[in-house]
């Protein structure tokens, strides 16, 4: 795996120097975003659908113990095995044991972020089991020893030439860098893996409590391969990904692809219910459901953040986030990028020292919350995080100092007026196009990456009487 620099700031700086990455991220997210608008319209009252999505997910979280219990019963009654894992280590151990029991040599995987979260591949490799990522994007970044940069499009930071180089190494001969050739090469290579893989591992978009089913949304068909060919299927799911009934799954089928990629539906939605039945020749003979907590009950317990577990991992909040669009997924440093990553990473890891600066990777413009199909108040949560970070005394000293000064200035009208006058006078040599671009002491962290708006020549307060009169003349509402 690539080692990313330790702080958000360093990772972002690295990303900002990668022009291809910035361009690729923009093109990808623009495409998804444009598609989303179109697909949303096909649904009619989008707001009503979002509210339904939110209500179903919130209801599940409020009764998660019941629905998990029901899910467990249903999976067992259909011949599946359920494994309940409190920690990442527990989950890894369960899967390692399954691999050992089957004498597995290779495991074929369809995109699963939870397995990234618990670092499964490393553990499998440590016992001599090859873990093969089969989603094309994941396959590419696995060959490059990197991590995904987008929830839905994990390899958007790679050029065709990069991919051709990687594939040429695998092939031992040059592979042309056009998309069809590359895709074809991957198809052949991975087909061998599908046919010989001992265990198939998938994530889980949704588990249906009433039927014990697991639903997978895919476009390439690798999710279907992984659940069709190997004799064992292991599903690794975060414990919150439950919907109560089959009918509720229909709501998610309408929300998830539209929000993520702008499709009405992904090419495949595969609903798996237990191992293969009497007479079936393909499909797994063993079905395992690994339910992972790994910090989720901590989020569930926390009223300020519980709603974050409503997430259906559609990626819409990434696509609209101006910060994500500039720096891409790697700058977030862990498994989950973008606004949702900035919210859940510090919570799942329970490590403020390492991840407490993530919630600062946001302009708090609220585009994320508006895009979210299950209405998670992402930007509010980013603020709540910052409050906790500050309360824990983790802010850099210069920033604390700056805010103390602001507080002093803003809580006294006299000091405020004085500060304002001083600012207007002293900024003059530094102002360019109404922005302060020079490095000001105490503001350097801000102005190094962007321009700070200069204090306006006249205060809004001073302008107000005139503006109000104008508004009245124009017949506008009177706000005085």
């Amino acid at each position, binding site marked *: 795996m690539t080692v990313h620099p330790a702080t958000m700031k360093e990772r972002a700086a690295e990303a900002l120097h990668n022009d291809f990455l910035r361009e690729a991220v923009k093109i990808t997210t623009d495409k998804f975003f444009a598609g989303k608008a179109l697909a949303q319209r*096909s649904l009619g009252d989008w707001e009503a659908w979002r509210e339904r999505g939110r209500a*179903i997910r919130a209801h599940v979280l409020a009764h998660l113990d019941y629905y998990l219990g029901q899910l467990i019963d249903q999976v067992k009654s259909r011949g599946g095995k359920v494994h309940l894992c409190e920690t990442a280590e527990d989950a890894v151990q369960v899967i390692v044991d399954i691999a050992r029991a089957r004498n597995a040599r290779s495991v074929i995987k369809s995109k699963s972020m939870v397995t990234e979260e618990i670092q499964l591949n490393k553990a499998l490799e440590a016992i001599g089991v090859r873990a093969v990522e089969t989603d094309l994007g994941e396959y590419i970044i696995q060959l490059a020893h990197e991590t995904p940069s987008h929830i839905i499009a994990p390899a958007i930071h790679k050029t065709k030439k990069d991919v051709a180089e990687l594939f040429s190494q695998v092939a031992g001969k040059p592979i042309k860098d056009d998309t069809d050739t*590359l895709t074809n090469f991957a198809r052949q290579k991975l087909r061998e893996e599908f046919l010989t893989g001992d265990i198939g591992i998938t994530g889980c978009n949704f588990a249906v409590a009433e039927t014990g089913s697991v639903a997978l949304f895919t476009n390439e068909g690798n999710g279907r391969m992984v659940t069709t060919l190997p004799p064992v299927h292991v599903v690794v799911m975060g414990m919150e990904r439950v919907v109560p009934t*089959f009918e509720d799954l229909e709501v998610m089928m*309408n929300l998830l692809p539209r929000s993520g990629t702008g499709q009405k539906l992904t*090419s495949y939605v*595969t609903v798996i219910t237990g191992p293969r039945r009497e007479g079936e020749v393909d499909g797994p003979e063993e079905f395992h459901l690994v339910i992972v907590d790994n910090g989720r009950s901590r989020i569930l*317990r926390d009223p300020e953040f519980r709603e974050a577990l409503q997430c259906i991992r559609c990626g819409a909040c990434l696509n609209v986030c101006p910060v994500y669009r500039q720096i891409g997924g790697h700058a977030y440093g862990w498994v989950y990028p973008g606004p949702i990553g900035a919210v859940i990473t510090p919570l799942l890891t329970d490590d403020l020292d390492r991840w407490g600066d993530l919630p600062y990777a946001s302009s708090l413009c609220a585009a994320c919350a508006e895009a979210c199909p299950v209405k998670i108040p992402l930007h509010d949560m980013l603020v709540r995080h910052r409050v906790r970070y500050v309360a824990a005394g983790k802010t850099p000293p210069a920033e604390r100092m700056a805010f103390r000064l602001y507080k002093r200035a803003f809580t006294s009208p006299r000091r405020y007026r004085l500060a304002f006058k001083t600012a207007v006078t002293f900024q003059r040599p530094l102002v360019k196009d109404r922005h302060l671009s020079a490095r000001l002491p105490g503001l350097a962290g801000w102005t190094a990456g962007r321009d700070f708006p200069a204090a306006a020549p006249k205060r809004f307060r001073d302008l107000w009487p005139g503006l109000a009169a104008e508004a009245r003349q124009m017949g506008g509402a009177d706000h005085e």
Partner: protein
Amino acid sequence: MSEERSFGRTEEELRFLARVANALGREVETSPPEQPVRGVRGLPTPEAAGNSLEQFLANWRAVGGEADVVRAREAAGRVAEIAREWGVGRVVRWNDPLLDELGLDPALQAAGISVYVWRAGANRDEAIREVDRADLGVTTVYWVAAEPGSLALLSGGDTPRAVSLLPPAHLALVPASRVVPGLTAIMRETALRGLSASLNFITGPSRTADIEMELTVGVHGPGRVYALLVEDR
């Protein structure tokens, strides 16, 4: 569904569920909670308003699928034509009586195309080998949803998953009577009649945009998908 819920809970399960309940600030719930809203009830579901068949064709073609409508007696001949056009030498198909009734095998064989019928309890290695080297997989469907334009396939001994997945092309014969306006009917029906081990909704060809966002079809599953709707039987 099941109301008595405490039977046969393992220690591990009790502990895990208790932790979750504890995070919610209460004891473990044992009776089903009242759902304030359920599924798409009361929502304007996307469903074909007019002719479902027409709408399915439009949606299916919009995502890159191919389609046509034929009479039952023309169906087998049409499949043979399409197969020839696509350069198909080997077909693997489901063991659905409908395909026998339509006379599929003789029509294909007359065109010099070999047919392997995957039956319940087939030899696994042989069946997988056949399907892996087939140029075309032929199936029927359980339902078709006009909106969003999807085929719904259920797995079973005679209706294996691999046939619509491994060959580079998939053709589904669809009795026109199985076209429904939207997903809702299918969701209710499947949950009611008890689920197969695998239910697949197929909406167009296998696709990826993972390399520089260029759309490519056929990355793992079929790159060509054909829905042949069969009117009157």
